[in-house]
């Protein structure tokens, strides 16, 4: 990434981020009646260089360390803060984009701006240049991390292997009737695919389909095994059990059809949508079942740069 595109990323971010996302909202305020002599302690204890002056929830001014030094230098008698503060304060609204704050700092050269609510005009927080920089860095770091982990790491990994066919294989064993550990295999699979750097959309489709299949193993089949084959362009999830089998597959595929016992339904399972969800996530699905022998389910999900979604 060259420096030009990084600048434009920052430019994009200052429009995207709102002031409330970066401002400090645990603001120390003083009342207009507070004596100037108290200000030093307040600023020193809170380690701040200025603070808003608030009178019954209304912002009436800002007092800074500069005002304090000026007061000291002039050797005046003690007086209320209201006499030395900057009144008529320039403010920002909490829901404004960050770029407005950047412009105002440039325009006025102040060290801080009070942030108020657009509706009730109450003080919501305070923003300094430091907050802006911190907010931008945080956001850039998150974006960078996202880019780094999602850059189809696995594709590069596959590119480095010379073979006529490449596949990664994982197996998960699922115990029956074990609701405590239900979903564990799909969670582990999801984490694994995440580490491989697959597109989040692909991962989500695989994880949801696998989760539903895993629940079926637990509820109906007294367990089974899940085998996953990851190839450069496709993921195959094979779910096998030696359970009771499905007497009428066509019926089982109908949304809402369920043979789940009541106690399973009370947990929020058994709504008759599992196989339906699986087929929505899959690009292709094969279901074979023999009563008394067991069920084999194959779920194919194509990897094409993350196109498609689990609700397709």
């Amino acid at each position, binding site marked *: 990434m060259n420096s030009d595109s990084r600048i434009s990323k920052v430019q994009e971010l200052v429009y995207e981020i709102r002031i409330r996302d970066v401002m400090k909202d645990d603001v120390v305020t003083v009342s207009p009646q507070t004596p100037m002599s108290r200000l030093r302690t307040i600023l020193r204890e809170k380690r701040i260089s200025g603070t808003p002056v608030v009178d019954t929830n209304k912002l009436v001014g800002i007092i800074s360390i500069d005002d304090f030094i000026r007061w000291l230098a002039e050797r005046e008698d003690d007086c209320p803060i209201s006499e030395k503060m900057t009144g008529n304060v320039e403010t920002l609204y909490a829901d404004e984009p960050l770029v407005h704050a950047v412009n105002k700092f440039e325009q006025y050269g102040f060290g801080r701006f009070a942030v108020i609510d657009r509706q009730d005009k109450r003080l919501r927080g305070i923003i300094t240049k430091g907050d802006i920089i911190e907010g931008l860095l945080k956001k850039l770091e998150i974006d960078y991390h996202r880019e780094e982990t999602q850059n189809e790491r696995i594709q590069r990994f596959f590119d480095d292997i010379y073979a006529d066919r490449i596949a990664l294989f994982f197996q998960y064993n699922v115990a029956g009737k074990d609701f405590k550990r239900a979903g564990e295999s799909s969670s582990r699979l*999801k984490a694994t695919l995440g580490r491989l750097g697959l597109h989040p959309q692909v991962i989500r489709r695989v994880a949801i389909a696998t989760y539903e299949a895993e629940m079926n193993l637990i509820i109906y089949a007294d367990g089974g095994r899940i085998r996953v084959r990851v190839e450069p362009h496709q993921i195959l999830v094979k779910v096998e059990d030696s359970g009771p089998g499905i007497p009428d597959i066509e019926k089982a595929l109908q949304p809402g059809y369920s043979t789940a016992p009541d106690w399973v339904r009370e947990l929020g399972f058994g*709504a008759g949508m599992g196989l339906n969800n699986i087929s929505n996530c899959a690009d292709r699905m094969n279901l074979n079942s023999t009563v008394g022998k067991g069920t084999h389910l194959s779920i194919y999900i194509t990897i094409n740069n993350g196109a498609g979604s689990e609700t397709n």
Partner: protein
Amino acid sequence: MKLTELTQKLNLDVRSAKTDLDREVTGGYASDLLSDVLGNAEEGDIWVTLQIHQNIVAVASMKDLAGIILVNGREPEQETIEKAEAENIVIMVTDLPTFEIVGKLYDLGVTGIK
């Protein structure tokens, strides 16, 4: 809107993953059927449910939901909390029933259809 803001405005008590409250809420979904949520909720949704067992964590994690709100003063089971901590899923509780909390969420601009 961030989870922090929701918890403050709706008076929600956070039961797990307190460090993940800066997550952005982009929509909402209310259902007690896990497969329904898996099929129809969207990434970034806040999920309102009365289910308290640990499988809600797996569902939220599969769908990359922003968080879970448990209604009617129902408390998550200990195992649910442990699992939610491990998977960084924010679980919040409210005394309000589903209808009320969903209404309040809607008032704050959290909608179901984007």
